[in-house]
C-alpha cells in the first residue's frame, strides 16, 4: 500500500497544479484521480499485466508537458488533420467537408459531455483513470448521420523534445452518426532522445449502421513509454475496423476494446515490430454483448534482438449473444534466440450457439524458402528481408487507406533493410 501512496502522491502535485476547467470536466477529473489513487499502477501480480512491468513508468517522475504550439505545421491536402502537440490540440483543420465537425471539448460541452468518459473504464483501469484525471481540452470529431466522408481524418499526437521526463494525456472522442462512414488515422510521434510518456485514450461511438475504418500508427521515439486505450462502442449493424501498427517506443501497451451490438461486424488487425530491448503488449477485448455479431482478429508480430511482446486476445460472448461468429489469430515471427513472445487467447463464452475459433503460432523464417531463394541467386540477407516483409504483407494488404498503405510499405521496407545492414 505504501508503494501505491508514494507513486500516486507524486502525481497529486501535478494534478492539483492543472489549470481549472469547466465544472463538469473538473468532476470527471476528480473521479479519475480518485480511481487512480485507489488502484495505483498495476503490477505483474495482476493477470492483465503479468508480462508487462510498468515499474519504469511508476518510478519515473514526469512533468506535465508544457502546451506547445502548432505553428509551422504544414497543412496537408486531401485529409482532415488535427494535430496535438504535447497532449493538447494545437492545430485544427480550417475547412471541413459537409457533415464533419471538429473541435475541442470546450467548443461543444453539451455534445461532448454526453459521451466523454462513458465508455473507457476509468473506474477500474489505472491508466485510463490517470488520463481522465488530466482531462483538459481534448479533441472531438463528429460525423453527421448518413454522411460519407471520403477524406481520412487524421489525429496526430506529437511530443516535443525535453530535458526532463514529460507526460502527455491526449484524449479524443469520435462520434459517428447512424449510417455515416469515415476513416480515422491516429499517429503518435516523438523524439528519440527524450524520455516521455504518452498516456492516451480515444473513445469511438458508432451509431447504428455506421462504417468506421480506424488505424493507429505508433511511431514513438526510442525512449518513449506509450500506453493507449482505444475504446469502441458499436451500434447495431455497425461495421468497424481497428488496425494497430506498433513500430516505436521502449515500453508500449496498446489496448483495443470493442463492444458489439446486434449484427455488428468488428475487425481487429495488428502488426508489431520489436527489436533491441523494446517491449510491446497488445491487449484486445471483443465484447459480444448481443446476438449475430461477427469479429475477426489477426495480429502479427516480428521480434528481433532481446525484445519481447505480448498478445492477449480476450473474446467475451455474453449470454444473449447467440449466433456470434468470432475468429482470432495471432502469428509471430521470431528472428533471434533472445526475443520472447507471450501469446494468450482468452475466451469467455456464456452463450451456447456460437462459433469461436482461435489460434496462435510462433515460428522462425522458413529454412527451405531461404535456400530456395538463395539457389536463385538472391543473397541470404536479402532473402531474410524478403521473407520477413512477406510475413507482414497480409496485414499491410488489409489496410484500405491507400496513403497509409504506401507509407507503411516504405517504412517497413526501410526497416528490414536497416536490420540487415
Amino acid at each position, binding site marked *: 500500500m505504501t508503494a501505491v501512496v508514494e507513486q500516486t502522491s507524486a502525481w497529486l502535485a501535478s494534478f492539483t497544479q492543472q489549470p481549472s476547467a469547466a465544472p463538469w470536466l473538473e468532476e470527471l477529473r476528480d473521479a479519475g484521480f480518485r480511481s487512480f489513487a485507489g488502484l495505483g499502477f498495476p503490477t505483474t501480480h495482476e493477470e492483465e499485466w503479468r508480462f508487462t512491468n510498468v515499474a519504469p513508468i511508476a518510478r519515473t517522475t514526469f512533468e506535465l508537458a508544457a502546451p506547445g504550439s502548432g505553428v509551422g505545421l504544414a497543412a496537408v491536402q486531401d485529409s482532415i488533420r488535427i494535430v496535438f502537440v504535447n497532449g493538447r490540440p494545437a492545430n485544427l483543420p480550417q475547412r471541413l467537408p459537409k457533415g464533419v465537425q471538429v473541435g475541442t471539448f470546450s467548443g461543444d460541452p453539451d455534445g461532448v459531455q454526453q459521451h466523454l468518459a462513458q465508455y473507457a473504464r476509468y473506474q477500474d483501469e489505472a491508466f485510463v483513470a490517470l488520463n481522465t484525471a488530466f482531462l483538459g481540452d481534448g479533441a472531438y470529431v463528429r460525423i453527421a448521420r448518413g454522411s460519407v466522408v471520403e477524406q481520412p481524418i487524421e489525429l496526430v499526437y506529437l511530443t516535443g523534445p525535453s530535458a526532463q521526463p514529460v507526460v502527455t494525456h491526449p484524449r479524443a472522442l469520435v462520434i459517428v452518426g447512424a449510417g455515416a462512414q469515415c476513416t480515422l488515422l491516429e499517429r503518435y510521434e516523438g523524439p528519440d532522445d527524450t524520455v516521455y510518456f504518452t498516456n492516451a485514450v480515444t473513445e469511438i461511438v458508432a451509431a447504428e449502421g455506421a462504417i468506421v475504418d480506424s488505424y493507429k500508427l505508433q511511431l514513438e521515439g526510442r525512449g518513449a513509454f506509450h500506453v493507449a486505450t482505444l475504446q469502441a462502442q458499436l451500434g447495431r449493424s455497425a461495421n468497424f475496423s481497428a488496425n494497430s501498427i506498433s513500430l516505436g517506443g521502449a515500453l508500449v501497451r496498446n489496448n483495443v476494446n470493442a463492444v458489439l451490438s446486434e449484427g455488428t461486424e468488428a475487425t481487429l488487425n495488428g502488426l508489431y515490430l520489436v527489436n533491441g530491448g523494446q517491449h510491446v503488449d497488445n491487449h484486445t477485448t471483443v465484447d459480444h454483448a448481443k446476438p449475430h455479431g461477427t469479429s475477426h482478429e489477426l495480429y502479427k508480430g516480428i521480434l528481433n534482438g532481446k525484445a519481447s511482446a505480448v498478445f492477449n486476445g480476450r473474446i467475451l460472448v455474453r449470454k444473449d449473444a447467440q449466433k456470434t461468429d468470432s475468429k482470432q489469430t495471432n502469428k509471430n515471427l521470431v528472428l533471434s534466440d533472445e526475443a520472447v513472445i507471450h501469446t494468450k487467447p482468452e475466451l469467455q463464452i456464456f452463450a451456447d450457439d456460437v462459433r469461436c475459433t482461435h489460434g496462435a503460432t510462433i515460428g522462425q523464417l*522458413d529454412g*527451405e*524458402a531461404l*535456400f*530456395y*531463394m*538463395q*539457389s*536463385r*541467386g*538472391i*543473397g*541470404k540477407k*536479402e*532473402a531474410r528481408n*524478403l*521473407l520477413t*516483409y*512477406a*510475413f507482414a*504483407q*497480409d496485414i499491410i494488404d488489409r489496410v484500405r487507406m491507400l496513403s497509409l498503405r504506401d507509407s507503411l510499405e516504405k517504412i517497413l521496407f526501410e526497416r528490414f533493410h536497416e536490420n540487415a545492414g
Partner: protein
Amino acid sequence: MALLEIKDLHAKVGDREILKGIDLSINAGEVHAIMGPNGSGKSTLAQVLAGRELYQVTGGQVLYEGKDLLELSPEDRAREGIFLAFQYPVEIPGVSNMYFLKAALNTVRKSRGLAELDAMDFLNLVREKMKLMDMDQALLNRPVNTGFSGGEKKRNEIFQMAVLEPRLAVLDETDSGLDIDALRTVAGGVNALRSPERSMIVVTHYQRLLNYIVPDFVHVLAEGRIAKSGGKELAVELEASGYAGLGIYDEEEAVGKA
C-alpha cells in the same frame, strides 16, 4: 577442361553417409541423366551441387569451371550459373512470383556484369519465356508457388531456368507427378534451352522422361556410387529389365530427402 568435375565426392546427412565416392565429369553442352532406385543418393547429389547446408560434404572435390564449387555459398553458385530445378518447389506466401524472379534475375545479371533490366524489358522477357512454357501470365502476380498445382510448380521451375539462363542446370525429378501432357511441355521447355554452352544433369527415377529429353550419357547410381555408365541405350535397357536386372535394389528411403 570439363565444365563440372566431381571427384570422389562423399556426403552425409546427420550420421548417415549417402554419397560414398561419386566421380563424374561433364563437358559443356552435354546432357547427363542420373538414374537409380529410391535412396541411392540422386537427390542428395543434386542438393549438394546447389549448396544445401543440410548435407555435409565429408570428402572429395567438385570443380566448376576449374574453381572449387564447394567453397561457394548457394547464391554465389547461382550467380556463377548453376541452377537447381527442385523436386519439391517451395511455396513462399507473400512474395510475388514477379518480384522474386526480378530480384533473382537482376542479382544474377549484376554478377555477370550486365545492367539490371527495367520493368518493361523484364516483362517482355518474362512473357516470351512464359509462352515457351505454356504458362498463364496470371501466375506472375501470385505468390511464389503458393496454391500452384504440381504441374504448375514444375513448369514454374523450368520457366525460372529459362529466365535465368544457367550454364549448368540440375533437374531433380522434374518428371515426378506430371501427366503426359505436362511432361511434354516441361521437356519441350528443357529441350529449347539445350545449347552447346549449357550442360544439364537430369535426375530421374523413370526412363519415361528420357524419351523426351534424350541424354548424351546415362549413369546409374546405387548405394551412393555410380554403378554403371553408358549412352542413352542404358536407359532403355533399364526400362526393359529394371534396376534388379543390374543387381540394384531400392534402399530404405533416404533421410531428410526434403
